[in-house]
């Protein structure tokens, strides 16, 4: 059941324009991520959760869904959000806790997503709670006879939580249209996978639920997209949930508060940079001739400009009003 899928770098269901659009999303994610880190180091942003190394998987799995599907991302999923249309401006408004920020009005830390319009369900910090919500969301959709899917994500370390088990158990009993997306970057903060589980592939955990588990190269955009699309189709057909594992590496420390030199070697980190998902995608597009070097430079410049503008906007934007903190504890 747990097999590593690779891809030939193409897929029938994505046109060339789609692919370029997604490449652009990946570039935008990377640029936002880099600049957030800089702002943090400059003392301007209290806290950053980077996603460097996860971009192909995140943009890939988000793209594998349909409009109207529900998404329950986790804190590292900036790429998922950007693929769904979340702007650089919003990312920086959130980083700085400004009033106009759409996910929480500046109430939540950065990386705590939610976007009603796009069916992105609000998330919290305690890991793995969202996995149960996805099951309930899917139950409700199915009960109404809708063919939407609920896709939730979490890190491999978070699969050790009890809620993971309860959620996969529920979803498999009721054959619900849920995708459990595990972004396996090999670390839970400093804890290596071997201290989080005794199995090689997170995908093997699916066996306990009679559910397919699929391990995918998470640095390969096309593989991630395709695996998600197939699992979503399966779910829509009524054949039940799938556990998707995307294997990649977290290229930066866990967060701006972390220092990963205490627990992993620079050699290990450097080695993984060769599999940088953005470079991989870029090289594929250049080699395939879908993108020229000039277009690529132009694209990168465009994205930089977008981010510059977003930062300026967010820095100038006002904080929430103090009195607004008392709102929305209950319905008015």
């Amino acid at each position: 059941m747990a097999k590593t899928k690779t891809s030939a770098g193409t897929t029938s269901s994505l046109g060339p324009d789609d692919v370029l659009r997604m490449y652009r999303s990946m570039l935008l994610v990377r640029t936002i991520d880099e600049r957030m880190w800089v702002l943090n180091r400059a003392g301007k942003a209290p806290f950053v959760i980077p996603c460097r190394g996860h971009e192909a998987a995140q943009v890939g799995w988000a793209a594998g869904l349909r409009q109207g599907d529900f998404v329950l991302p986790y804190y590292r999923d900036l790429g998922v959000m950007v693929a769904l249309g979340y702007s650089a401006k919003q990312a920086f408004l959130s980083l700085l806790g400004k009033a106009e920020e759409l996910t929480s009005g500046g109430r939540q830390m950065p990386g705590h997503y939610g976007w009603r319009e796009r069916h992105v369900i609000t998330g919290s910090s305690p890991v793995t709670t969202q996995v149960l919500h996805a099951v309930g969301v899917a139950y409700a959709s199915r009960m109404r006879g809708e063919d939407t899917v609920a896709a939730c994500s979490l890190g491999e370390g978070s699969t050790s939580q009890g809620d993971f088990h309860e959620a996969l158990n529920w979803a498999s009993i009721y054959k619900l249209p849920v995708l459990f997306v595990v972004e396996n970057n090999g670390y839970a903060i400093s804890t290596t996978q071997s201290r989080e589980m005794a199995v090689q592939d997170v995908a093997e955990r699916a066996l306990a639920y009679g559910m397919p588990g699929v391990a995918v190269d998470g640095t390969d955009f096309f593989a991630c997209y395709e695996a998600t699309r197939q699992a979503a189709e399966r779910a829509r057909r009524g054949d039940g949930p799938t556990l998707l594992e995307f294997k990649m590496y977290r290229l930066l420390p866990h967060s701006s508060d972390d220092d990963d030199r205490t627990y992993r070697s620079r050699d290990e980190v450097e080695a993984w940079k060769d599999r940088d998902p953005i470079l991989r995608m870029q090289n594929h597009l250049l080699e395939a001739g879908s993108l020229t070097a000039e277009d690529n430079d132009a694209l990168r410049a465009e994205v930089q400009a977008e981010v510059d503008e977003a930062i300026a906007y967010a820095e100038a934007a006002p904080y929430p009003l103090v009195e607004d903190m008392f709102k929305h504890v209950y319905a008015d």
Partner: protein
Amino acid sequence: MAVKNLIDGIREAMREEMARDERVVLLGEDVGKRGGVFRASEGLVDAYGEQRVIDAPLGESGIVGVAIGMALNGLVPIAEIQFADFIHPAFNQIVSEAAKIRYRSNNDFHVPMVIRAPFGGGVHGGLYHSQSVEAFFMHVPGLKVCIPSTPADAKGLLKAAIRDEDPVLFFEHKRSYRLVRGEVPEGDYTVPIGKARLVREGKDVSIFAYGLMAVHAEQAALALAQEGISAEVVDLRTLVPLDREAILQSVARTHRALIVHEANYTMGAGAEVAATIAEGALFELDAPIRRLTGPDIPAMPFNTPQEEHFMPNPEKIAQAARELCAL
């Protein structure tokens, strides 16, 4: 009006709300064919089908977590926890999720759901089938907490809870399920969340209680009346929002406050009631505030004499009121 058991009020509320609103679903351990271990949901699976009356796999975090997801996607779940003692595995889903979703999303999402659980002792349930857990949830803004003491309130409050747009913890004293009988209006009505019920007016002492203890307090007041002590009984009925106004007004009338609950003494609901009075009506008091509660032991023992000693009852309430009035 027909005289019914308290649990009939619960069942009727669920049956009528499920008929009225097809978004309402019930999930919990053994709520289907078995009708729940106390039979609160008897007949509901036959009436509304297995899709809406769901025998959940064993696991309270799962039940509440799935219910939250349902509520986020247009359903109105009633999650039954088989015994209040077993709500703790769901604590994270209740406190971190249900309570905070509206707030953290700046009003974009909300969780209209009810978590029902039988609580309380006096049924030889021992340490783990007797606990009172309401106090934990009173400290969590975003949640509401209701505890009915009469069959009529059970029905009307539960209906209000189901229609409420926010998560409501609804605790039902299990000993009162078939012990407490009373008239229940036919058809549709609600009892507002956030309003205490003045059970009986008095002028010498106010007794604040809820659930089975409100019933006991009323009996105590009857006995006290024979002795010429006029006790006012206030059934708090909803602990969150707490009807602080009603509490302060009652103290202003009687100048003495006795608070009764079965939950452990320290940091039970009585602490908040006492603190409310100490902040808002201190100079009205003619005697120290008194809390008559379960003792600070981990939970109620199974054996008969110790269980009896744990529970407050009409005699102990009357005695505490007498002592207060003698001060």
